[in-house]
């Protein structure tokens, strides 16, 4: 007991000073293990709220082929979970979103190295496909790194890790358009719907649509479209105007007839999420990023 107390004291150092600050120490190994585990978990299980969306889609789908596809997606999820095997052979690029608390500290290395090591370990030990390669020689890096790691500094002592394996089929359908201000909401919605129509069955519908509007430069718009995909799948945007645009785009996309896997049907997308930020007075950038039916992601807070 005394030893345990000593350990706790060591791991939660109280720094006395003008602004007393609580530092939370974590080991490098703990972060590696957490990231590795998330890579496996995200590839083996469909998130619970996505399962609810798939169930609802099955109820609402009218086409016979569409219903068959939705049934198979749910059978696939059962097999993957039972056998701890990936839902899809494309285990994706490893996208990692980190929310790093200002008072989060790691000993034994830095957090980026720890997450990268976790990705290497998770993909190796989980028998996940390694899909990263040199863009020109096409030589595989062999361990699915580099991971795409986005960091955000937040208040607090904790580290939140979200892993989203992103398959090439859906990512290849990503689009960015630098609209100009006169295009307005209609221009945004038209662009989003047109992008889904052009993607057709390729990104494995029924989809989750992530749309980024605004941002001070193009890469920020792209990031917003990805960030939108992290929204809980049963929530609408808190701003009613944005929520209405989400509904409008979803409704229009579901009138295209593309349906599950492009085989025809009502349910082309299960949800549409928009994230926005202010943009330059000359611009109205918009980006769309598509997530496949299994909406793979997993998260943990250390």
């Amino acid at each position, binding site marked *: 007991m005394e030893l345990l107390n000593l350990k706790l004291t060591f791991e939660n150092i109280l720094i006395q000073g003008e602004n007393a600050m609580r530092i939370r120490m974590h080991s490098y190994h703990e972060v590696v293990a957490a990231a590795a585990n998330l890579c496996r978990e995200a590839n083996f299980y469909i998130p619970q709220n996505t399962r609810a969306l798939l169930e609802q889609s099955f109820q609402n789908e009218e086409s016979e*082929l569409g219903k068959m596809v939705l049934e198979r997606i749910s059978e*696939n999820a059962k097999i993957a979970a039972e*056998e701890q095997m990936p839902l899809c*052979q494309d285990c994706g690029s490893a996208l990692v979103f980190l929310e790093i608390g200002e008072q989060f500290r790691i000993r034994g290395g830095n957090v980026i190295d720890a997450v990268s090591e976790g990705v290497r370990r998770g993909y190796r030990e989980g*028998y996940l496909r390694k899909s990263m390669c040199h863009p020109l020689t096409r030589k595989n890096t062999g361990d699915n790194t580099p991971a795409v790691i986005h960091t955000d500094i937040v208040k607090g002592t904790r580290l939140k890790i979200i892993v989203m394996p992103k398959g090439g*089929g859906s990512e290849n359908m990503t689009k960015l358009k630098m609209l100009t201000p006169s295009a307005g909401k209609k221009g945004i919605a038209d662009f989003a719907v047109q992008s889904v129509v052009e993607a057709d069955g390729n990104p494995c519908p029924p989809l989750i649509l992530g749309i980024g509007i605004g941002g001070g430069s193009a890469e920020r718009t792209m990031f917003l479209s990805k960030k939108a995909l992290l929204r809980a799948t049963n929530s609408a945007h808190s701003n009613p105007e944005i929520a209405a645009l989400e509904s409008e785009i979803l409704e229009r996309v579901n009138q295209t007839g593309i349906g599950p*896997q492009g085989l025809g049907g009502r349910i082309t997308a299960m949800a549409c999420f928009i994230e926005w930020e202010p943009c330059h007075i000359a611009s109205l950038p918009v980006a769309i990023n598509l997530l496949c039916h299994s909406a793979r992601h997993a998260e943990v807070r250390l």
Partner: protein
Amino acid sequence: MNAKKILLPLTDEIIAGLKAGDAVLLSGILFTGRDAAHKRIVEALARGEAPPFDIQGATIYYMGPSPAKPGAIIGAAGPTTSGRMDAYTPRLLQEGLKGMIGKGFRSEAVRQAIVEHHGVYFAAIGGIGALISKCVKKAEVIAYPELGAEAVLKLEVEDFPAIVINDIHGNDWYRIRK
């Protein structure tokens, strides 16, 4: 949904009986090939060399599996997007390729080549690789092992579920589905 059971290899007679929108269950031999393998095969043909398997009458599955766990036949084994193979496909159809399995739409050139050379394009369901792996009874690397997940595999499959997308009559299920 009633699916037609089909024994591979595909013959002109079998292909003549398939129409866009048909559900099928395929049993027999498939060869896998993705971007890198297609590039190598077409380059080999251009040099007048023999491809690594007999393309005459063959069916290619656009797939690169996840690694098999110890004792397993294969890992997850679902289709990849077919459009990326469009640049190479007419050449292979000309060589006698009969069937293709992938996901997503094909180019105009591929659709025409399917009609001209009496081929067929099937879609498998994307993102259900764990389920599809259960149809694979044997898997063997037969070419380009250095390509890893993109190596050419010879697969023996049983009741592999697919949908006819492009038939010899020029029909395209992705266009007529509505």
